C-alpha cells in the first residue's frame, strides 16, 4: 500500500494539541518550551544514528522523537519518524535512506511554527508572593524560616516522586526571577543570596523529572541557608 504523501499531514495540528490539553493555553506554552528544549538533542541523536546506519539505534531514537512529536501534534514529523522507525524494525535500509533527508526539513518546519506561536503569545512574567516582606534592589526580602520550610516540603515531595509544578510554588518563582535576601524573624538581613541560577536549575530539573539531581540542588540550598542561620 502506498504511503500517504507527507504534505497531506499538517506540520503542526494546533487544534488537536489543544483538544489533548483540554484548552489549557498555559500548558501549551510550557509543552512547546519543553519540546523546543528537547528537540535539538533528539534530532542530533537520530541524525547520528541515520549517518551510522545503526538500525537498532535508529529505531530507538526515531521512536523517542515520534512519541514527543505526536504528543505535541507535530503530525508531519510524527509521520516521518513513524515510518523511519517502522523501516528500521524491518531492517529496510533503502527505505530509511529515502526518508532520512526529510528529517532536518520537517524538524525545522515544526520548530519554526512552535517558536512563532510562542512569540505571538508571550505573556509577561509576573511575580506574586505572600511570603515576601517587600522588594529591594538586592532581591526580595524573604523570611529564612519560610524559605527553609519551602525547601524542606519540596524535598519530601521530590522523594515521593510527586508531580510538581515548580512555578506554582511562589517562593521558587520569586527566587528564580528576582533573587532573594533572606531575613531573620526579627527582620535582620541574614543572607543576600543570589540563588537565581540554582533556582532556575532546580525548576528545570523538576520539569524534566530528574528528581535525584533536583534533590541534590535542594539539599545544597538548604545547607546554604542553614549555614547562615547557624
Amino acid at each position, binding site marked *: 500500500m502506498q504511503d500517504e504523501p507527507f504534505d497531506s499531514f499538517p506540520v503542526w495540528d494546533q487544534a488537536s494539541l489543544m483538544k489533548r490539553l483540554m484548552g489549557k493555553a498555559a500548558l501549551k506554552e510550557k509543552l512547546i518550551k519543553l519540546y523546543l528544549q*528537547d528537540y535539538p538533542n533528539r534530532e542530533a541523536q537520530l541524525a547520528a544514528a541515520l549517518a551510522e546506519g545503526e538500525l537498532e539505534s535508529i529505531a530507538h531514537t526515531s521512536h523517542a522523537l515520534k512519541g514527543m512529536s505526536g*504528543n505535541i501534534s507535530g503530525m508531519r514529523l510524527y509521520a516521518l519518524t513513524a515510518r523511519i522507525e517502522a523501516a528500521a524494525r524491518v531492517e529496510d535500509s533503502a527505505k530509511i535512506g529515502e526518508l532520512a533527508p526529510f528529517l532536518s526539513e520537517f524538524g525545522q518546519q515544526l520548530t519554526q511554527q512552535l517558536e512563532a506561536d510562542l512569540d505571538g503569545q508571550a505573556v509577561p512574567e509576573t511575580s506574586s508572593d505572600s511570603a515576601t516582606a517587600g522588594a529591594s534592589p538586592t532581591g526580595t526580602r524573604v523570611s529564612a524560616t519560610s524559605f527553609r520550610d519551602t525547601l524542606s516540603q519540596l524535598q519530601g515531595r521530590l522523594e515521593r516522586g*510527586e*508531580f510538581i509544578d515548580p512555578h506554582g510554588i511562589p517562593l521558587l518563582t520569586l527566587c528564580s526571577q528576582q533573587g532573594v535576601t533572606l531575613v531573620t524573624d526579627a527582620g535582620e538581613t541574614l543572607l543576600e543570596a543570589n540563588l537565581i541560577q540554582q533556582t532556575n536549575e532546580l525548576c528545570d530539573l523538576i520539569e524534566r*523529572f530528574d528528581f535525584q539531581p533536583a534533590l541534590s540542588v535542594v539539599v545544597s540550598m538548604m545547607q546554604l541557608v542553614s549555614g547562615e542561620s547557624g
Partner: protein
Amino acid sequence: MTRKKPVVMIVDDIPLNIHVLAQCLSDRYEIRAANSGKRCLELLAAKSSDVDLVLLDVIMPEMDGYEVLRQLKCNKDIANIPVIYVTDKHEETDEEKGFALGAVDYITKPIRSAIVQARVATHITLKRQRDSLVQMATRDQLSGLYNRHYLFEAAEQAVAAACRHGRAISVLMCDIDKFKDINDQYGHGVGDRVIQAVADVLQVSCRREDIVARCGGEEFVVVLTRCDIPLARKKAESIRLAVQALTVLDRPVTLSIGIAMMSLACEHFEELMQRADLALYDAKNGGRNRVICADMTAELPPEPQAQAR
C-alpha cells in the same frame, strides 16, 4: 470523612509525555512521576508508597516497560498494582506480550484525553473495589487489625518460612484483663473503645513485617518474625507497659501476655498458638498484667537460663 484522591504514577523517559498525561489526570488524581523504569520500581517499593495505578511507557532506555512489569510482579508488596501500558507500539504481538506479563490495559500514543481518563477511571474503580474486598476479608472491623482468618493463613506461611530458613519466630497471645467487667460496668461502647485503644498500642509497637491480629473478643495475637524469646519478651513487656499506661474513662486497662517461640522440631502455627495460650493461662492465674513464656526446654538449648515459668 474525605477520601484521599487516588494516586497515579506516570512512567516515561520523555518529560513532555509525562506532562501531557498528567494534565489529563491531575484534576482527579494525585500524580507521581518517574523518568525511568528503575526509578518507578524504587518509588513503588518505598514503604510510604501509595500508588493505585501505573501508566507505563514500553520503550525506555536501560529498562523497558516489559522488564519493569516483570520485576513489579516479582515483588509481592506491589504486584497487585494495576499497570496500563502507554505506548505507540500497537501491533497485536506487543499487546499480547504486555497482557501476558500482567498489564491490565493498553493506551496508544498520541494519547486522547477522553480515552485516558475513561480507562484510568475504570481501573481505579476496580482497584478500589478490590482493595475494599481485601480489607473486608482480612481485617477486623472494630480494631482495624488483621482478622482470625488472615492470621491463620499468613502465620502458617510465616512459620513455614521461618522453619525452612532456620529463623526464630515467636507468638504473643494477649488478652485484656477483666474485660467482661468493663463491658458489664460501662457498657459495650466503652468495651469497644478499650479494644481499639489496645489494638492501637499493638499496631504501633510492632514492625511492618509482623502480623498483628484480633482473634476474637478481647484476645489478640502477634506473630513476631525473626524474633527469639528474649526479644519477644522485651517486646511483650513494652506492650504490657504501654497498655498499662492507657486509661479509658479513668479506668485502668491491663493486658496479660503468653509467649511461645517455634521449637526446633518446627511445629505448626496451631501448636505454637496452643503453647502461647497455656502461657497466657499461667499469666492470668499468676495475677494478670504480666508476661509469661511457654515451656522452652525443648526449644532453646544454647540458652538454658531462658527457662519456663
